[in-house]
């Protein structure tokens, strides 16, 4: 049962990540990585937002995208989820072009907006998410709610929850839908210390199951332990700092 893994506050350790590898050392030819971007760039009205950017994400890997406000982190996630069309380069999901194949059900996006209805209860919102995106075997909306520490809030309208609790409901949605790639935009925002640990635990569990995640952060939230591979975004320029993460 996935919930058992989440509910237990085990020691936090990132799974083995190829953090000492450089980007080019990850061989794209053998097994296609879950996600690969080549020369990816996005410009709005001729004004470059980010890129060109090359990176890949293997199954079971968590990568942190760092950058200041306005460096294009959110835009990058939108491009990777297929919401925005990149202006240059390509995104491959399991070796297939993202824009060509309808693979968006392999991506779960947690954005700045909750994507849920304030008027509806937590359970109604999660049931809708399941109806829309399908469900991972062995989990129910009730279990997912309990996993994020919101047991007993099933009948509570979302509007009565605090910002952090809403974020937890959004995390419960990620647990439910069968997406292999999580794109989390500032998942630590609004969360208390326990919530931050919860996010780390969920990420660890997801990675151990073979899922991958890209997380953005402007750096204000520290990890309690374990350090994922990092990609640093600068305004209009990309700097990849692979392997230097364990500083």
């Amino acid at each position, binding site marked *: 049962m996935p919930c058992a893994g989440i509910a237990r506050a085990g020691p936090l350790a990132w799974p083995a990540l190829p953090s000492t590898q450089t980007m080019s050392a990850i061989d794209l030819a053998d097994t296609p990585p879950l996600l690969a971007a080549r020369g990816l760039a996005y410009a709005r009205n001729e004004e470059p937002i980010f890129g060109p950017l090359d990176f890949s994400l293997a199954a079971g890997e968590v990568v942190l995208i760092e950058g200041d406000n306005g460096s294009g982190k959110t835009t990058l996630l939108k491009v990777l989820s297929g919401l925005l069309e990149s202006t240059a380069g390509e995104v491959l999901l399991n070796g297939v072009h993202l824009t060509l194949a*309808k693979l968006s059900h392999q991506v779960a996006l947690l954005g*700045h907006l909750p994507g849920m209805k304030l008027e509806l209860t937590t359970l109604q919102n999660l049931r809708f998410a399941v109806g*829309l995106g399908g469900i991972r075997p062995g989990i129910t909306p009730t279990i997912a709610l309990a996993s994020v520490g919101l047991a007993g809030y099933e009948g509570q309208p979302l509007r009565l929850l605090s910002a952090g609790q809403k974020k937890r409901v959004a995390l419960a949605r990620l647990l439910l839908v069968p997406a292999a790639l999580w794109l989390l935009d500032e998942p630590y925002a609004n969360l208390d210390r326990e919530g931050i640990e919860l996010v780390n635990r969920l990420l660890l569990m997801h990675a151990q199951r073979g899922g991958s995640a890209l997380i953005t952060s402007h750096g204000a939230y520290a990890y309690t332990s374990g350090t994922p591979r990092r990609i640093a975004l600068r305004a209009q320029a990309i700097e990849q700092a692979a392997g230097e993460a364990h500083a």
Partner: protein
Amino acid sequence: MKPGTTSAACVALLKRDLALTWRRRGDAFNPLLFAVMVVALFPFALGPDAQVLERIAAGTIFVAVLLAALLSLDSLFRSDLDDGSLEQLVLSPHPLSLLLACKIAIHWLTTTLPLIVIAPLLAMLLHLPDSVLPVLLAALALATPLLSLIGAICVALTVALRRSGMLLTLLVLPLIVPVLIFGAGACNAAQAGLPYAAPLLWLAAWLVLALVLAPLATAAALKISLT
């Protein structure tokens, strides 16, 4: 790890939107009150002469219902855009046009169908002859879904703009003029004792066309709006 079926997604969306309408049921009455108010004001302005009212009845009701439906159009995607639900719809593995068709259907059912239900009452207020009432109801039943479908494309185009109300009205107005001409025309023909089937059939033909094409156009327009 397989995604849910498309029909499950549509059912989930229908259920959610119905639950939402129930929670916001105060808003659902707005178009209804508007239409009743407009129609009720005409006798005060024109005097209670039954012959005058009878002549303008069908046209007035038609205009009031179309304007009331237009009023509620703006809310079609607004809240979904504001809270990010629209992004989740676009990201879902199911055809966006089908999901949007469900949304439009629910919107029509909850905001416009009540208008058709009270249309007999409006007809009574304006002394519409009983023989014309079925034609009026048939014309409304064909014209209002058409308005919802055409309107949805325009809403999708303008939803991301701030203060899109004005632009939306300007976009929709020329498109619904033919609908009004044929709908009210059928009623007027029936009132004059002339055959009225042709305009109704035209409306039906357009409705079928819009049912097929409008959700596709709406989906394309929404994707443009979101970028």
